[in-house]
């Protein structure tokens, strides 16, 4: 019996070990670390580690920015943070309500979790459905993961942790409620999903591309030195902003011109992606999604009442 149990344990070990995120923090500025995810889509191979999260080690303790896609990811973050510093985690800040950014929060149940109040509302309304969808996409990595709502509401302004003054900025362009965090000490800008780099932007809750563009321009004008996009590589120059504004402009123009020409959705979806975006992953996939989310507004703008 014991031998059999042992055999079973040994046999089941590899599959358990496979489900490890192996998070490695990368220092991007003094006291500041990023867990950089891949630019792939969600899959059972990556467990949803397609997102950038981070933390700042301050004199007053560790501030965590976003908690990742699952309980397992949140725990892996905490473990990795513990290898960098003995200081306790004292604050979690969520940039927005999307599941890849906010579903690891259970691992920080003993820490105050703060977000914009609209983020809390959106997570309350849609969190379960978003979590369910993620279970479907990545499977067992999600085991035990449940939505944990933020317990603090953030107002725009400055919050100080030790020597780090964090400027909190409230926007809406990507998800309806998007927090951007600029560390005034180091110049690191955690842009959340207002900024995508080398990975196509996603639009399921965007109030509109024009709004998003305007807000990106405001964000670009802040005194940042290091850019941490929600998805894609960390940068020290304006390339992510340039790419993102270019892409947003292309998408907005494509949808407007297609509606003006009377194209139906499948014709828009089949549009060639400009070669200058070849390095960006998942462009076709996200175009299919964005047409579904956004094209109806553009269609209605070119039609008029004809009923009698």
């Amino acid at each position, binding site marked *: 019996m014991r031998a059999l149990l042992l055999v079973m344990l040994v046999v089941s070990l590899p599959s358990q070990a496979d489900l490890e995120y192996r998070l490695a923090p990368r220092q991007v500025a003094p006291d500041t670390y990023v867990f950089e995810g891949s630019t792939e889509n969600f899959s059972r191979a990556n467990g949803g580690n397609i997102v950038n999260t981070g933390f700042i080690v301050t004199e007053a303790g560790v501030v965590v920015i976003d908690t990742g896609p699952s309980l397992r990811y949140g725990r892996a973050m905490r473990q990795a943070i513990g290898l960098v510093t003995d200081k306790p985690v004292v604050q979690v800040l969520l940039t927005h309500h999307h599941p890849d950014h906010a579903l690891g929060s259970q691992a920080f149940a003993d820490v105050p979790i703060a977000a914009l109040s609209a983020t809390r509302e959106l997570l309350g309304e849609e969190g379960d459905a978003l979590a369910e969808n993620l279970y479907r996409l990545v499977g067992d990595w999600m085991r035990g993961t449940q939505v944990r709502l933020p317990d603090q509401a953030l107002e725009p302004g400055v919050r100080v942790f030790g020597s780090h003054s964090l400027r909190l900025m409230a926007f809406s362009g990507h998800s309806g409620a998007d927090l951007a965090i600029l560390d005034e000490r180091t110049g690191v800008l955690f842009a959340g999903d207002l900024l995508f780099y080398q990975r196509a932007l996603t639009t399921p809750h965007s109030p509109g591309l024009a709004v998003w563009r305007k807000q990106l321009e405001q964000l670009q004008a802040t005194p940042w030195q290091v850019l941490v996009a929600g998805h894609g590589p960390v940068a020290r120059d304006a390339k992510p902003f340039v790419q993102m504004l270019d892409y947003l402009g292309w998408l907005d123009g494509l949808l407007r011109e297609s509606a003006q*020409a009377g194209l139906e959705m499948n014709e828009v979806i089949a549009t060639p992606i400009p070669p200058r975006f070849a390095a960006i992953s998942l462009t076709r996939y996200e175009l299919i*999604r964005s047409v579904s989310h956004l094209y*109806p507004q553009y269609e209605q703008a070119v*039609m008029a009442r*004809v*009923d009698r």
Partner: protein
Amino acid sequence: MGRVPLLLAMLLCAPAFAVDPGPDPVPSVMWEFYRQQWLMDAPYQFDARVRVIAPPFAEDARQVPLQVDARALPGTVQRILVWAELNPLPKIVDFQPGPQVLPWLAVRIRIEQATALRAAVLTDDGIWHVGSTLIDAAGGGCTAPSVVRSEAGWEERLGQVLGARFPREDFSRLRLEVSHPMDNGLVGGVPEFYIEHAELRDAQGQVLATLELFPAVSENPNLSFDLRRAEALRLSLRDNNGNTFDAAID
């Protein structure tokens, strides 16, 4: 068996033997069932010239864009029957384009799960040409709560029609969006309430095309047609409660 009955039998069966259906490009367990129900014993063939175009996956299973293009078929198209094979209510539209309307149609539909989508196109030689595609979906599009019914004032907007025409080199595109919940009877005890009939006429009242709609068509139906001429048009709609709605496009 005498000679006459044999001859009769041969005649009756002739069309069915005359056409080899070929292989089903998207094998599906429900194909035979719906073929027997709707095409009955008429001859048919799987035909790549009938293009059924949908995204590879449904981002919103309540509003899936579907295009059917039978312009590559020789002969005259009489009827285009479209369905989603694994939907609880599979039928989408039954379209009869007249000579002034191209055998082409775009519509948005509900799907309940990953499914084969079919368009059977009847040409004047009595043969059904069947186009197919597959779409993946997380599902639930047929049983999701109505978006229209959650919006204040939807009853006042019932039957409102948005429309526009768009010139093409050798035809004219008409796009329409009709305010209607298109209730399919599967959601929250709300009985079936949907637009079931649409007609396009010219200024003289001549019918250019008819379209039967079924509750697999999404709420606020979004329809596109291609017409040979950019003439003035009348659109009339009727729902299953007997409401009628009219529109005019100049």
